[in-house]
């Protein structure tokens, strides 16, 4: 098994996720793209764990999964609230973040 395989796969997924984060307008879609990124990272972690076979990689992957779950929960809740307040979840319409 070539070591590069997993890493390259991870890189591709990561880039696709990045594109999604930048390009998408719908908050839910952005969250999905973030999931892609996280999974890309996980694949790398597992791959490295496999290379110098150690359990830490797997443990980190599990941490990431857990945190991702939490993040999705909170994120969707926020999306929900935003939606209630302004009947839209289009990100480019919420620009209060500008200074």
């Amino acid at each position, binding site marked *: *098994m*070539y*070591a*590069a*395989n*997993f*890493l390259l*796969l991870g*890189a591709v*997924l*990561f*880039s*696709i*996720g*990045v*594109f*999604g*984060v*930048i*390009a*998408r*307008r*719908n908050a*839910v*879609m952005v*969250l*999905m*793209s973030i*999931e*892609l990124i996280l*999974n890309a990272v*996980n*694949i790398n972690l*597992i791959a490295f*764990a*496999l*290379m110098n*076979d150690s*359990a*830490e990689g*797997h*443990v980190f992957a*599990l*941490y990431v*999964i*857990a*945190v*991702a*779950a*939490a993040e*999705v929960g*909170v994120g*969707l*809740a*926020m*999306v*929900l*609230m935003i*939606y209630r307040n302004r009947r839209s*979840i289009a990100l480019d319409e919420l620009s209060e973040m500008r200074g």
Partner: protein
Amino acid sequence: MSALLASEVNVAQNVGFYIIAALMVYGALRVVSTRNVVHAALWLVVVLGGVAAQYILAAAEFVAVSQVMVYIGAVMVLFLFGIMLTRATIGAESDLNNRGWGIGIPVAALLLAVMVWAIIDEFGSSIIEEPAQPMPTTALSDVFLREGLVPFLALSFVLLAAAIGAIVLARKD
């Protein structure tokens, strides 16, 4: 390369990997390109499943299983709920992308190029030898409950906080 294939590389495993990988990449592309939110979610399921499969290929059963359970079990359901509750139109939607979405392509491409360059540069054709047996779950638990204990607890608090926060945010009053 051919020599390597002959000797150390398990061809079947590679083939499996490539098939799944192709499927995942396609799925991922659909996730970020489709016009329909629900379809995007379903394509995401495909990708996550593929990731789980890759974990199995990489001899990480436990992670694979938890991936399936957490993501496909929980996260995706959350997503679908989110979609429903925000009344995103189930059908195709015209403006899922920003006006300036084009900038994403060069950025992502550049990023990919750099990573690929670095990876090829470093692990050009280094071979992972097959692990004798899959990572025993006991090993994981050892790590979790010894040096990984504090992060483990912290993590559980994070989850708790997230749950409460989610409820607080989403509560209708």
